[in-house]
């Protein structure tokens, strides 16, 4: 694991350049450009608020839309990192087969680029909170730690998944379906208090569900996540990273031939 991390560190100039390009690519040629980073989650938030809060009335509270938004932003980061990261080795195959390109840089770029989108969308959340009268509390100070651990978890996942995807293209299709399912297992569109007590343990075993709760607590509710949960998440993130790196390392020599 240390090898890969130090290699990634040495390639930081390259990663930086690729992340910049990645971000620039996404909205190049579009009229609203970077605004789409905000518009996408805003539209989703509007839809979910309308459906769940007004039509189905499963979720209540005047600040439901803020809760949804604070959960949606990290969720969008997770899904776009996982989708793009998993496909990254295959979609940039020509770089791996035709030039001396460090393969592990590609999944890393996917995670970082979508992280930048996530961070840049946070001010919108603050604006919403301001209008709803929800205070920005000192718990925001915990945000960097959560983002860091979340990032490690995603990096580990995509390092492993992208390597598997080189040999089994099914992985990326499978992932899309699994993520749809997982979305509803995460307390994004419903308050976590709605989770039945006997299912809570199992739901919160899922790092993606847990991290959603962390964001909601820290950003909106102004409470600190329980230390135990935080430790569990940190362990899960590092274990995922170790596993992902191991899978990647085991297979990296075959990438150029399989692509």
């Amino acid at each position, binding site marked *: 694991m240390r090898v890969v991390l130090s290699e990634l560190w040495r390639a930081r100039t390259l990663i930086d350049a*690729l992340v910049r*390009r990645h971000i620039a*690519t996404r909205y190049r040629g579009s009229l609203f450009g970077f605004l789409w980073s905000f518009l996408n989650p805003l539209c989703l938030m509007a839809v979910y608020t309308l459906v769940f809060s007004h039509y189905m009335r499963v979720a209540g509270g005047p600040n439901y839309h803020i809760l949804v938004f604070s959960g949606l932003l990290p969720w969008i980061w997770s899904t776009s990192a996982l989708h793009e990261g998993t496909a990254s080795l295959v979609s940039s195959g020509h770089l791996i087969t035709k030039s001396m390109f460090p393969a592990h840089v590609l999944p890393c770029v996917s995670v970082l680029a979508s992280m930048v989108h996530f961070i840049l969308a946070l001010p919108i959340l603050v604006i919403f909170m301001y209008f709803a009268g929800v205070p920005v509390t000192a718990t925001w100070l915990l945000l960097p730690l959560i983002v860091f651990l979340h990032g490690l978890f995603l990096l580990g996942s995509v390092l492993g998944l992208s390597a598997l995807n080189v040999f089994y293209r099914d992985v990326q299709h499978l992932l899309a379906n699994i993520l749809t399912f997982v979305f509803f297992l995460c307390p994004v569109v419903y308050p976590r208090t709605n989770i039945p007590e006997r299912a809570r343990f199992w739901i919160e075993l899922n790092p993606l569900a847990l991290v959603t709760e962390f964001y909601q607590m820290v950003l909106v509710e102004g409470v600190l996540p329980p230390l135990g949960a935080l430790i569990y998440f940190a362990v899960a993130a590092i274990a995922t990273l170790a596993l992902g790196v191991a899978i990647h390392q085991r297979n990296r020599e075959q990438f*150029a031939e399989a692509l």
Partner: protein
Amino acid sequence: MVASSANILQSKADHCGDVGVQYVVDIVNLSKSFQRNSRSKGSYTTVKSALLGLFNRGSYDRSPRQITRAIKDLTMRIPKGSSIGLIGRNGSGKSTFLKLVTGIYKPTTGSVAVAGRVAALIELGAGFHPDFTGRENLILAGVMHGLTREQVAERFDKIVAFAELEDVIDDPVRTYSSGMFMRLGFSVAVHTDPDILLVDEVLAVGDAGFVAKCKDRIAELRKEGKTLILVTHDLESVERWCDEAIWLHEGEVKDRGYPRRVIDAYRHFVEKGEEEAILETERHVPAQTHPELGGAVETKVEAARWGSREVEITAVQITGADASERRVYHPNDSMRISISYQVHTAQSDLVFGIGIHRADGLNVFGTNTSIDRVELPALISSGRIDCVIDRLGLLDGSYVLDVAAHRADGYPFDYHKAAVHFSIRSDNRVVGVISPERSWLVDSQEVGRCA
């Protein structure tokens, strides 16, 4: 140049450790095999097929796994500052070799040790994004080659000027012509301080002027003591550029040494292979297609034979200067056309003729004993008549030879159309059909003589 070649020889003699020569590439017992699993259609499998494979162990094992050995037990060292030309036919392992040196592929067995920074010109402009401007792509490409942003900024103007793209550097590269695209890729790659420059058949970028510039730049890098590994089918540039040629054949080094000698051996080998191919088609008459180095060329001249056979042509042979039967000639070669005949009924005005057509039907040359005012003695029974062409003077291509025995008025005794196929091979870049002997003079002083 001589000194470094001597070093190479020395290193060949004593591989274990000689003083004074630094090696930038050290390859020991290198092998590379590719597994092509014949069960799956592509090079990748799906979970489903992998699972099926698990359950059907039996059939899985029975299916033949094709293992291609692209590189077989290669050991070589490349001294610092040398310039190596890698030649060989398609599929001989040249590209695999380059990918092993760059580390894109990992060896199956053995090892490759490379000292220094490698710039690989395998695909120019790999990683360029069409929607980004030349400037943006240049910066990223520089970083991908291992430069820092500051270094890229420093060299930016030089790179752009070299690529001759000053006017369009801020346009998206999708608006570039393919030549401009490649120029940018090449320019970035050669301005990244490589210690070893790997060039895979990419010198055909842009127009002649730019190619000259590329070659100048490579010469400059060589002067700075950089190592060059050139993979190309352009044997001329190997001869001009390299102080050593390595001929790969089916994953093994078939020959290595002075470029001229190795290239000659290689050329001879290729011609022999071609000759066999020509003989093969002649055996399978009608010979309508004609396998060539660069693929099959359709021969529009069909083999045919007609005539009264009062005089019969029993055999036709073409031989080179060494009196051996050959099918591939150089423009400067001589050719002896031997026609064996059998006279069944004595003739008073017997004429023998020859004609050469290019494979596409162009009539290149034709004459006969009557046109050439040759007095034939009275021919009875059997014998042989030869026509010796001292210098063919034809340019590269596939040709067919017609021979005929007829009466002066054209009445045919035996007419062989496309009796023999042959090819002309040279590295001549003269265009057209013929290559006459010529000399160039400046103010009546001869400065060059060509054939």
